């Protein structure tokens, strides 16, 4: 399993410097990364587990977990971050489970996307909105 810690750390630094990018630019960056990962193949909706909180307790360290039975690799993107790439987890032939857990930094409310490459060469994706809020008024 390969965890690109460096990307996550770099992302943190970038998030501090940049706050808002125009949406079209963000969307195409995410699409480009998915295309690069899939080689342009069709991506099915669902079939990937993505466990993330609905509302982040702390946007600077949001626990997430991804998994897909039999996946060769799972790419995680934070669609609203200045640098959407978070990590790509790769699973070898002898991997007992195809799950990975980490913590990521989110610049604001946004979709977290997981794209899995399955052993048969097909792709599947799932996304979940994680809200980053200033909070403060609980009943």
């Amino acid at each position, binding site marked *: 399993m390969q965890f690109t810690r460096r990307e996550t750390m770099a992302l943190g630094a970038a998030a501090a410097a940049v706050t808002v990018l125009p949406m079209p630019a963000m969307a195409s960056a995410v699409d480009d990364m998915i295309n690069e990962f899939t080689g342009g193949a069709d991506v099915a909706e669902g079939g990937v587990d993505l466990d993330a909180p*609905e509302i982040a*307790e*702390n946007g600077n360290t949001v626990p997430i977990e991804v998994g897909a039975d039999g996946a060769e690799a799972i790419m995680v993107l934070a669609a609203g971050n200045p640098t959407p790439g978070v990590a790509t987890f790769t699973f070898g032939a002898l991997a007992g489970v195809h799950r990975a857990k980490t913590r990521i930094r989110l610049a604001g409310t946004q979709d977290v996307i997981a794209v899995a490459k399955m052993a048969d060469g097909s792709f599947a994706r799932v996304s979940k909105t994680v809200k980053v809020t200033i909070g403060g008024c609980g009943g």
Partner: protein
Amino acid sequence: MISRRDFLQVSMAASAMVGASGFGNWARLAAQQALTQDQLLEFDTFGNVSLIHVTDIHAQLKPIYFREPEINIGVGDNKGEVPHVTGADFRKMYGIEDGSPSHYALTYNDFSSLAKEYGRVGGLDRVATVINSIRAARPDALLLDGGDTWHGSYTCYQTAGQDMVNVMNALKPDAMTFHWEFTLGQDRVREIVEGLPFAALGQNIFDAEWDEPAEDFKPYEFFERGGVKIAVIGQAFPYMPIANPGWMFPDYSFGIRDEHMQQMVDEVREQGAELVVCLSHNGFDVDKKMAGVVTGIDVILSGHTHDALPEPALVGDTIIIASGSNGKFVSRVDLDVRDGRMMGFRHKLIPIFSDVIEPDAEVAALIDEQRAPYQAELDEVIGQTDSLLYRRGNFNGSWDDLICDALLSERDAEIAMSPGVRWGPSLIPGDDITRDDIWNVTSMTYGKAYRSEMTGEFIKVILEDVADNIFNPDPYYQQGGDMVRIGGMGYSIDISKPQGERISDMTLLSTGEPIDPARNYVVAGWASVNEGTEGPQIWDVVESHIRKLGTVSLEPNTSVKVSGT
């Protein structure tokens, strides 16, 4: 199955005595209706299991007034659904007669005059009498406390929750879950929980560092009652570190964690649970959604959003019970569990009319014992009110209007902010305002009244953020409070819009000028979740303001214009 008639015993019994429908004559009608303890407690014991649910007591040991909301707007799939139905619509929905005890208990209209007729509600000594009566019919009934118990009064603050622990222990609950308890700080919570003679539950209370279930709180507890193996799974308030100061309990993480909830349900079923009860502090709409996502829960005892519903809501095979707040109601749920499944239920939301239900002498003495060391401070009269003082409502309440006025004048601010919490009893016109009363609507461990400068733009960001916590169409993104209350500034809100587009027409009321996004405004507020907040305690600010006023008299607040409902 249960008939609608059974749910509504109180209102029907009482309304039978009313001749004509009397719009405008509610108080007079009320006076004609005799209500007895036997009527309130009447219940044909059913099946083989009884659950007793209390929740969101907010440290209200003594009887209080509590006005239910006028404005409680539902969004998305919950638009127009309970609990987002109020007033006359609510009474029509449940067949409640105008002027009846249920009208007074469950809706807001004509509250002041009905309050004078029907009197105060709640009081844990009366709650004790109801619990004892249910236990007399069903000795092994389960008593379950949905949390927000160790918070919300002068004595609770002074004793760091010990007064409530002592009194609740006397009621002998079987299990409890949590929310505001954590604002006592994690060390104090752990100290109390270690000594609790009942289960402290929360399947969604996790260790923040390892993101694993926290060791101090069990996810569930098994009970054997009426020959039935019952699993009670706890669900603490999911958004504690966001809605309340996370720095006070840094070791813990929460969240809805419905997948883990499903795992727990599957686990208890595998261990032979015939009845699965979720003791929840999710809030009603979140519980409804969760009931549709998680399979295998028979009963959700719902807390947090302070809704009182005379009938359970049904989602698939799950029934959801909402039992109000501040000790005003006790829910009794009788269940017929056979062959490993729930075959039927009977439910009654019992309003605790304090002048009708005899206090339990032992618990009454215990309550007085908790309050005795502070009696002089509690009873000191600070002022009087000519206005009905209440809190509940999505956008404002007269208590918060008064608190915002206090912040504006005592802290010399242009704009005031008061948190949209849902606790805090009401006072009716003519009442004295005691220190006890002021603390009942302000007591908390992070009550310092800050004074700072904010740009107009940032104020809008705050309003948009809080509005989305209430009006996001997906309940899982809602935190269950109400809108932050604003003094000194008006605004319009279109609740149907997405975050960032709901708020407009922000106006500084003192000048009538639009709020300038770039200008700094002096803002005073309280209940900041930030560590190190400085300022006087909010109860001192409010007390000083009321002393100067002598008698409180408030104009209706029309500074928030609502659309998109």
